[in-house]
C-alpha cells in the first residue's frame, strides 16, 4: 500500500504471567510432555517405595513391618500406580514431546484436549492414593481387582474404581489426539512409510488406548454399580457371572500390556540404528510386526484364565504363541541392525541393549506360560511376578531409561553425565537380575504371589533375601540417576542440536526447540531425513574442496 501509516505508539511488552501460571495453563506439547514426565516419575517414586516396603517385609519369614491388610494395599497400589500412572503416562509423555517434532508438526492436533488429558492423570492418581486415608485403607484386591474380592472392601476400593475411570479417560483422549496428529499434521514429504518407528509405535499404542481402555471403563462401571447401586453383574446368586469380570478385565488387560511395551519397542528401534551407525534393519518388517501384534493382542485375553477351566485352551494357547512370531521378527531386526555396526556404548545404547537381553528373557517366560499345562503349575506363583517384571521392568523401564538419556539433551539442552549413566545402568541391570531372577525359582518351588509372609522351613528364605538385596541395589541406581539429573540441570545449556548424529526430525531443531518447534524444516525424502542432510552436506563439502 502506498499510504504511509502513522507510526504506532511504542507498545508496552505484554505482561507475562507468573511462570507457575504459565506451566499450569500451558497447551504447548513440549511443556505438557515435560509435565507428563515429572508426574510419571513422581508416581514411579511412590510406587517404588511401596515395592521396597514389600521387599523389606519379605526379607525374613514372619511379619515385621506391615499388617497383612497393609501388605495387600501395598501390592495393589504398587501395581496400579506403576502400570497406569508411570509406565503408560511416561511413554505418552515422550510421545507428547517427540511425536510432533518427529513428524515436523507445530503441536498436537488438539492442544487443549492434550492439556486436559494430562491434568486428569494427577487427579486420578491422587484419587486412588487418597484411599490410604479412607476407613479400612486403600484398595486391596490387587491391580486386577478380581470379583468377588473387589466387591468387598471399603471406600478405598471405590476410590480405586473412580480414579481408574479418570485415568482411563485421559488415555482415550490422548489416544484420539495422537491418531489425529499423526494422520493429519505430518510435514510435506513425511509419508506413512517414512514415519519414524517411534511414531508408528505411538500410533499403535494409541489405537489400543482408544479401543481397549473403554472396555475397562465399562467393567469398572459394572463393578461400581454392583458395589454402590446394588446391581448383580458379578454376583452369581442373583443371576450374574463372577467370571465376567475376568473376561472384561483381560479383554482390556492384554491389549494394555502391549500399550505398555509398544512405545519401548519404538524407542529401542530408534536408538539402535543411531548408535550402530546403520539404518534400522527391515523397517517394513518392524512396522508390520507392530501392526500384527496390535491386532493379535485382542485375541489372547483368556490365557490369563486357564486355571478357571472355563476357556478354550487350544485357541488361546495358539493365539498367544502366534504373538511370539512378530516379536521374534523384532528381535531379528534389532540384532541385524547391530550386526557389523560401529557401536557406540553411550548410556542410551547401554539401556537399549539391556532391554534386548531382559525383554528376551521375559518373552521366553511368556512363551512357556502360554502352554496351559505349564500355566497350571505356575499360575499365581512368583514365576508370574518374575515374568511381568522381566517384560515391564527389564523391558519397558529399561526402554524408558534409554529414552531419557537419549532425549534429555533435546528436552533440557544438556547432556546427562556419561559416567553416572554407566553407573546407573550397571547398578540397575545387576540389581534387576538379582531381584527378579530368583523369583523364577521361587515360583517353581511354589511360593504364591501376594502373600506377606512365609514359613521358614520352606526353603524360600535365601532367594527372598537375594531379591530384597537386589531391590535396594535398584533403589541405589535410581539415586544415581536422580543425582545425574540434578547435577546436569545445574549446568549451563550446551547441548548441540544433534548430539548423537540422529536420523529423525527432532534433531533438526535447537535443543531445546523454540516454541514454534522449527525455524526451517529439512526436506523429507526417506525415513532418515537428517542422515540424508548430512550426506548432502558432506557431498557439498567434497564438491567445494575440488
Amino acid at each position: 500500500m502506498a499510504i504511509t501509516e502513522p507510526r504506532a505508539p511504542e507498545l508496552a511488552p505484554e505482561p507475562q504471567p507468573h511462570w507457575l501460571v504459565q506451566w499450569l495453563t500451558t497447551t504447548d506439547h513440549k511443556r505438557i510432555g515435560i509435565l507428563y514426565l515429572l508426574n510419571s516419575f513422581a508416581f514411579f517414586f511412590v510406587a517404588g517405595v511401596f515395592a521396597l516396603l514389600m521387599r523389606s517385609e519379605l526379607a525374613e519369614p514372619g511379619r515385621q513391618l506391615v499388617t497383612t491388610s497393609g501388605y495387600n494395599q501395598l501390592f495393589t497400589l504398587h501395581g496400579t500406580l506403576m502400570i497406569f500412572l508411570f509406565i503408560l503416562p511416561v511413554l505418552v509423555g515422550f510421545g507428547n514431546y517427540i511425536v510432533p517434532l518427529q513428524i515436523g508438526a507445530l503441536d498436537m492436533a488438539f492442544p487443549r484436549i492434550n492439556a486436559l488429558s494430562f491434568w486428569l492423570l494427577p487427579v486420578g492418581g491422587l484419587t486412588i492414593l487418597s484411599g490410604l486415608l479412607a476407613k479400612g485403607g486403600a484398595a486391596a484386591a490387587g491391580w486386577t481387582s478380581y470379583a468377588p474380592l473387589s466387591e468387598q472392601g471399603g471406600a478405598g476400593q471405590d476410590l480405586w474404581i473412580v480414579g481408574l475411570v479418570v485415568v482411563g479417560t485421559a488415555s482415550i483422549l490422548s489416544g484420539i489426539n495422537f491418531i489425529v496428529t499423526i494422520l493429519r499434521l505430518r510435514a510435506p514429504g513425511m509419508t506413512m512409510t517414512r514415519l519414524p518407528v517411534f511414531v508408528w509405535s505411538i500410533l499403535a499404542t494409541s489405537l489400543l488406548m482408544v479401543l481397549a481402555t473403554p472396555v475397562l471403563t465399562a467393567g469398572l462401571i459394572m463393578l461400581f454399580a454392583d458395589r454402590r447401586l446394588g446391581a448383580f453383574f458379578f454376583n452369581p446368586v442373583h443371576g450374574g457371572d463372577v467370571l465376567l469380570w475376568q473376561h472384561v478385565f483381560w479383554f482390556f488387560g492384554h491389549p494394555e500390556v502391549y500399550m505398555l511395551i509398544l512405545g519401548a519397542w519404538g524407542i529401542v528401534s530408534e536408538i539402535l540404528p543411531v548408535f550402530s551407525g546403520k539404518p534400522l534393519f527391515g523397517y517394513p518388517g518392524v512396522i508390520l510386526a507392530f501392526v500384527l501384534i496390535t491386532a493379535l493382542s485382542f485375541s489372547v485375553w483368556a490365557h490369563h484364565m486357564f486355571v478357571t477351566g472355563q476357556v478354550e485352551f487350544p485357541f488361546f494357547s495358539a493365539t498367544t504363541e502366534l504373538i511370539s512370531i512378530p516379536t521374534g521378527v523384532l528381535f531379528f531386526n534389532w540384532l541385524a541392525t547391530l550386526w557389523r555396526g560401529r557401536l557406540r556404548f553411550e548410556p542410551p545404547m547401554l539401556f537399549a541393549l539391556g532391554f534386548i537381553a531382559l525383554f528376551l528373557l521375559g518373552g521366553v517366560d511368556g512363551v512357556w506360560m502360554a502352554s496351559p499345562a505349564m500355566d497350571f503349575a505356575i499360575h499365581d506363583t512368583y514365576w508370574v511376578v518374575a515374568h511381568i517384571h522381566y517384560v515391564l521392568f527389564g523391558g519397558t523401564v529399561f526402554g524408558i531409561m534409554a529414552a531419557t538419556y537419549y532425549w534429555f539433551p533435546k528436552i533440557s539442552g544438556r547432556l546427562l553425565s556419561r559416567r553416572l549413566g554407566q553407573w546407573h545402568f550397571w547398578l540397575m541391570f545387576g540389581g534387576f537380575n538379582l531381584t527378579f531372577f530368583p523369583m523364577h525359582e521361587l515360583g517353581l518351588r511354589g511360593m504364591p504371589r501376594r502373600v506377606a509372609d512365609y514359613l521358614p522351613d520352606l526353603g524360600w528364605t535365601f532367594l527372598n533375601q537375594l531379591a530384597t538385596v537386589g531391590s535396594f541395589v535398584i533403589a541405589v541406581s535410581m539415586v544415581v540417576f536422580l543425582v545425574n539429573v540434578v547435577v546436569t540441570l545445574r549446568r549451563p545449556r550446551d547441548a548441540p542440536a544433534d548430539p548423537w548424529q540422529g536420523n529423525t526430525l527432532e534433531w533438526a531443531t535447537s535443543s531445546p526447540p523454540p516454541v514454534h518447534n522449527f525455524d526451517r524444516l529439512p526436506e523429507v525424502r526417506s525415513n532418515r531425513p537428517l542422515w540424508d542432510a548430512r550426506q548432502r552436506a558432506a557431498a557439498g563439502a567434497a564438491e567445494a574442496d575440488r
Partner: protein
Amino acid sequence: MSAVELTRDDRAVRQTSGPVLGMVVFVASEAMFFATFFGAYFTIYSVNPVWPPAGFRLEPELASVLTVLLVASSVTLQTGVRAIRRDRTRAMLVWLGLTILLGAGFLGLQLYDYSLLGFGVRDGIFGSLFYVMTGLHMAHVFGGVVFLVLVLVQGLGGQLTYAHHDSMEAGSIYWHFVDVVWICLFTTFYVIGLR
C-alpha cells in the same frame, strides 16, 4: 477468489478435517464401551437357563415410540447437515432445533418409561442390565443434546458456514452413533428378550 482457488477450497472441505476425524475415533472408542455391555448381557444370558427371569415386564409400545423419536431425530439432523453443505444456514438451524426437541422428547419419555416399570436396578440381574445399559445410553443422549445445543448457539451467532461447520458434522456423527446404540438396545431388550 479465482476458480482454481475455489476448487482447492472445495476439496479442503471434502477431506475429513481433524475434528471430524477425532470424533470418528472417539465414536470407535464409544462403540467398544457399549460392546462390552452387550458382551456382558449375552454372557449372562447364556449362563441363565430362564431369560428374562420371571417378573420383569417392559413397555414395548412406549419403547417403540422412543425408537421412532430417535430415528426421526437422526433424519432431521442429517437433513440439517445436508442444508449447511449447500450453504443454507437458516434451514440448518431449523432442522437442528427440531433434532434437539426430539432428543429432549426422548429423554423425557424414557424417564416416564422408567417410572412405569415395576422393577429397579436392585431386583435381580435383569434389572441391573436394563437400567445400567439404558441409563448409560440415556447419559449419552443427554450429552448429545448438550453438544447440539452448543452447535445451535454457534449457528445462531453466525459462526457456522458452508466452509466451516466441523462441529455440526462431528455432532451428527456422534448423534447417529447414539441412535444406532439405541437400536441395538431395543433389539436386545424388546425383540430378542421378549417372550
